[in-house]
């Protein structure tokens, strides 16, 4: 195909994973440690990749992926966490090399994986525009030419000579997106960047992307968990599942199948630390570790829920708020619970450690249906510390007091409240 801008052929990528076998006797342990130490020492010396553990397993993050993207096409990429989306993007942006297969790219690639990458907190907004531009592959002359446009787009004129560490996180993302959006690459790769920033700025970004693809004939690859945005932006999608392409074609039917395929989790403990985070998170002082459903699963409408969130801090964090949210599969948030909502109490955690917070919901107002669970944490009003959108899929089933006639109706929230009848006869 002559007008293919991206040609991917039989692309595969494997990682090595280490496993630990059971410990039996002290002698076994000593013998094993000695063997492992020798193996690691030899690996270090030879410069090979060293794997922790006793048995080494090969894991294929991508397996035989073939794909062609035409000039001006806007292609959405969907799939669950760990389906290989990030690995595919990392190979296309040359961050990591494939194990097998080949990719041919015609034109300059820019990716918004790297929004704000290389921003230095001590440097001013002006200096960071030049630094970030160079990291993204622009020449200094190009940046000077586009400098005014970038500043106007990001709306930060007043703070150009302020170090970016004093920026709000919204300003930070705006400036970062503005630099990346003015790179004018032939191929633009966008990975979940639009989850931050206010609604107005999101609209501006979506408009810019639309302009980039439609008017300028650039190719866009777009990864998102937000099916609404995917449907409105991308005429076609690929659905990645366990490292392979499961479906490739028109967006609507595939998204329908993808949503139907989501299976609700019934695991009483949700491991959060192994789920990859959105790329815009800059602060790693606090990491959410797991969420434990103390009152069990499935969740029942109108019934109480008790859950415990475990988290770790690596350094002192001030004014912490933790929250969970329920969203539709299209990415629309329906319900949010946050620790500071009623009393404004936000504890400060002075030193590294392992902590937990318990949440009790007296009566779950969500109507029986399938939902995505989002878990997040911030410091102060709006400084994001950790955020995991669609950590798992959950099913809410009817509770003992749920009237049979609400199941399958449109409303997402059914709340009890006080009614007073006055019937005049």
């Amino acid at each position, binding site marked *: 195909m002559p007008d293919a801008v991206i040609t991917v052929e039989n692309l595969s990528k494997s990682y090595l994973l280490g496993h630990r076998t059971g410990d039996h006797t002290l002698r076994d342990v000593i013998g094993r440690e000695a063997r492992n130490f020798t193996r690691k020492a030899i690996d*270090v010396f030879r410069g090979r990749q060293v794997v922790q553990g006793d048995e080494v397993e090969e894991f294929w993050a991508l397996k035989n992926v073939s794909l062609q993207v035409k000039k001006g096409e806007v292609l959405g990429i969907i799939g669950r966490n760990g389906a290989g989306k990030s690995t595919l993007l990392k190979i296309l942006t040359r*961050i990591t090399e494939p194990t097998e297969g080949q990719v041919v790219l015609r034109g300059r690639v820019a990716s918004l994986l*790297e929004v704000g990458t290389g921003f230095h907190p001590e440097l001013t907004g002006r*200096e960071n525009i030049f630094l970030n531009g*160079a990291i993204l592959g622009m020449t200094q002359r190009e940046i000077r030419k586009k400098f005014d446009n970038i500043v106007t787009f990001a709306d930060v004129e007043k703070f150009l000579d302020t170090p970016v560490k004093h920026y709000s996180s919204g300003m930070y993302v705006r400036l970062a997106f503005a630099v990346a959006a003015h790179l004018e690459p032939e191929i633009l790769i966008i990975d979940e960047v639009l989850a931050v920033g206010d609604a107005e700025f999101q609209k501006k970004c979506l408009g810019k992307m639309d302009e980039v693809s439609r008017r300028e004939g650039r190719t866009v690859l777009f990864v998102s968990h937000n099916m609404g945005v995917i449907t409105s932006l991308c005429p076609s999608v690929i659905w990645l599942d366990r490292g392979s392409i499961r479906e490739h074609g028109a967006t609507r039917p595939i998204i329908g199948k993808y949503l139907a395929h989501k299976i609700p989790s019934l695991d009483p403990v949700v491991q959060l630390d192994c789920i990859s985070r959105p790329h815009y998170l800059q602060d790693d002082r606090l990491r959410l570790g797991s969420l434990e459903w103390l009152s069990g699963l499935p969740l029942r409408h109108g019934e109480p829920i008790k859950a415990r969130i475990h988290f770790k801090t690596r350094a002192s964090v001030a004014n912490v708020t933790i929250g969970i949210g329920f969203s539709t599969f299209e990415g629309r948030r329906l319900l949010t619970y946050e620790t500071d909502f009623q009393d404004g109490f936000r504890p400060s955690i002075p030193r590294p450690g392992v902590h937990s917070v318990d949440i009790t919901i007296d009566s779950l107002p969500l109507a029986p249906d399938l939902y995505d669970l989002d878990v997040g944490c911030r410091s102060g009003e709006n400084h994001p510390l950790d955020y995991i959108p669609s950590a798992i899929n959950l099913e809410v089933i009817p509770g003992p007091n749920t009237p049979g006639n609400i199941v399958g109706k449109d409303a997402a929230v059914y709340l009890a409240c006080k009614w007073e009848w006055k019937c005049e006869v």
Partner: protein
Amino acid sequence: MQDVIVIEAGRRERNYWLDLWRYRELFRVLAWRDLSVRYKQTVIGVLWALIRPVLTMVVFTIIFGQIARLPSDGTAPYPLMVLAGILPWTFFSTGLSEASNSLINNANLISKVYFPRLIVPTATVVVALVDFLISFSILVLMMAWYQFLPGWQILVLPVFVLLAFFASIGPALWITALNVKYRDFRYVIPFIVQFGLYVSPVGFSSSVVPEQWRLLYSLNPMVGVIDGFRWCILGGQSGLYAPGLAVSIGVTAFFLWFGIRRFRAMEKSFADLI
């Protein structure tokens, strides 16, 4: 015509040096970033680059010159001889320690953008070089104070600056690559630097080393560099021990080759490991 990029296993290896040249602008910008950030939020800023060598010179002159009564090179004043050793040593040790941690300090860059990774540690050594040039002004002042005029040998000095650059970048490349996977190596560096200060002829002249041991002593690449510096700065007062210099250059060249080789072998997996 637009450029065509082909990605496949092992491909990066073949275009390695060409790629490095293409990214020269990023190299400049990263060095500029490190420089402008270096003394932010410090009260006396760039004065740090002067205070450290001056204080070390005072202490070493008192300990080695006054208390231990070690001889200087020829008739050169002892403080001047010490300073001519401290400057290259500080350049080497800052370069080595900063470059060794450079990949980890730039982890977010490496896991998110592609560029030849060799740029990162090399740009850090350039920062150490600028520090060196600043502190060199002390030497000029000291020479004026002692009314000590250098000979023609001073013209050869850039060659030894380059040698010091290579001596620090070689091992640094190897260690920074290892550091990505095993953070153990960040504890090794302060040890090497502290230890090296005493086994290198910084506070004393290498002429105090007995003749039969000097060749062996030159296996330390900094011996050649510091001797070279003294020869250039103090003029004929400090004799240049040619076989020793050759050995030091040989060791430096070996580490440079070995460092680049190891770095390139491990470079591919940086983004997966960091």
